[in-house]
């Protein structure tokens, strides 16, 4: 009776058939599905299923109506009630009843799977009853069952292991760090976003603002070494110089633009854009996207490098 029930080419054993009838009450699994597929092509197994169904039905009816008479008592005496130990005489009557109802040999051995589930206390009650009835008469199955019980007892006796000392403290320290980071992060989003949030950011920002200040200070220091210079004179001089430089730059730029014909091209491009609103909108959108992405790139690079503990959250 070692037929492998996962391959539905073979006949179903007692265990599989009972499993099928039990499964009718619960959700079907892959195993019952394959048993059903086998039954479609196998009248022999179908007949066995019908016989077992009769047994199950008989038991159900007896449980509900319990007709008076010695027959019912005899049948019921064959059923193990939960918590009751099975006595050989009761088991014998049950085996005989089973034999009589199914026309099958009473020495059908228990499957490996049935024995395992029995040892693990996971066999449905009806199947457990039948299995116990067989076990009472079969030393072979009894010793195989003892083997499975030994294996399970060995597994259950295995120790649990403790992590190294201080594990809980390390987890709590890490947890505190994570919650503080999270709190800090939500606070930072409320703060002004442009403030640097890392030492690297501060160095960058410091350099950017420091360079022009240092350059201006150097120029001022140099000028202060010239004795005949007054503050008012310096300001007026600088102002003139700036104005001259600006106007010279402006006129040379204008000349260059006129000479290259760029102004004309820019004018005709603008004219073309205004003539067609769709291209105008597209150009505006392109310009905006470009602006936004460059702002974003700047923000990402000046801001906090990356949240180092991110992997903890995913």
């Amino acid at each position, binding site marked *: 009776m070692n037929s492998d029930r*996962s391959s539905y080419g073979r006949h179903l054993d007692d265990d599989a058939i009972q499993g099928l009838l039990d499964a009718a009450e619960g*959700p079907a*699994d*892959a*195993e*019952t599905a394959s048993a059903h597929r086998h039954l479609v092509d196998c009248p022999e197994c179908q007949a066995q299923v019908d016989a077992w169904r009769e047994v199950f039905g008989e038991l159900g009816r007896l449980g509900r109506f319990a007709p008076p008479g010695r027959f019912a008592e005899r049948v019921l005496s064959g059923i193990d009630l939960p918590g009751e130990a099975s006595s050989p005489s009761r088991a014998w009557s049950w085996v005989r009843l089973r034999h009589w109802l199914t026309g099958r040999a009473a020495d059908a051995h228990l499957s*490996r*799977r049935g024995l*395992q*589930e029995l040892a*693990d206390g*996971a066999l449905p009650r009806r199947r457990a009853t039948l299995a116990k009835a067989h076990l009472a008469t079969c030393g072979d199955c009894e010793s195989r069952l003892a*083997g*499975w019980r030994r*294996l*399970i007892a*060995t*597994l*259950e006796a*295995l120790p*649990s*292991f*403790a*992590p*190294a000392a201080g*594990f*809980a403290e*390390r*987890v*709590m320290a*890490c*947890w505190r760090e*994570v919650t503080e980071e999270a709190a800090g992060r939500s606070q930072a989003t409320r703060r002004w976003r442009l403030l640097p949030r890392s030492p690297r950011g501060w160095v960058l920002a410091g350099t950017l603002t420091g360079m022009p200040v240092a350059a201006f200070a150097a120029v001022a220091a140099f000028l202060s070494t010239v004795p005949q210079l007054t503050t008012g004179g310096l300001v007026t001089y600088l102002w003139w110089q700036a104005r001259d430089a600006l106007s010279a730059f402006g006129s040379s730029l204008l000349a260059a633009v006129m000479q290259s014909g760029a102004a004309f091209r820019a004018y005709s491009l603008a004219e073309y854009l205004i003539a067609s609103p769709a291209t105008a909108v597209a150009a505006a959108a392109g310009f905006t996207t470009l602006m936004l992405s460059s702002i974003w790139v700047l923000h990402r690079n000046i801001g906090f490098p990356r949240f180092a503990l991110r992997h*903890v*959250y995913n």
Partner: protein
Amino acid sequence: MSLNYQSVEDAQLVALAAEGRESAYRELLSRYERPVFSLIYRMVRNRTLAEDLAQEAFIRTFNAIDTYNPQYKFSSWIFKIANNLTIDHLRKRRVPTVSMHGAPDAVTPEAQARTSLVVQSPGESPEEYVQNRELGGQIEAAIGELREEYRVVVLLRHIEGHTYDEIARIMDIPLGTVKTYLHRARAELKLRLAEA
């Protein structure tokens, strides 16, 4: 207000933890550090790695504490997180040291020899010594040779004592598959122990 946390049920502890009470987190840790560590340790068979993964499992659990569904047992939940983490890790790394006789996917004898654990007594680190002592026994070695899915179901069922339904939930597989895995796992263990 002081509470004797040891008498508080898991679900209540989780609620207290969600309010931000550190002592509730500590109590959950003391309840589950051994079971969670043991499961992961028997899966990855390396103490340092098992501790790292166990720590991460706790941090993830704590982080998601306000999403805990009290309809299910807390133990199922934390084991689910620990199991996912461990399986992810094993899949990514394909740790060759899982088996004493070579990696599960080592088909040729050369590949088996290349990936098998060399059990040496001299020159082993203190950690290796502890691991060999803890996991070197016949039954532990046999468990170590099971494929990952089989190993998880055996550990959850026979060491942690979860029901078949709980195991199905922890591993996100149908009940029928749990039964099949368990049967095959136990049959393999029995065979290996008989051979030894």
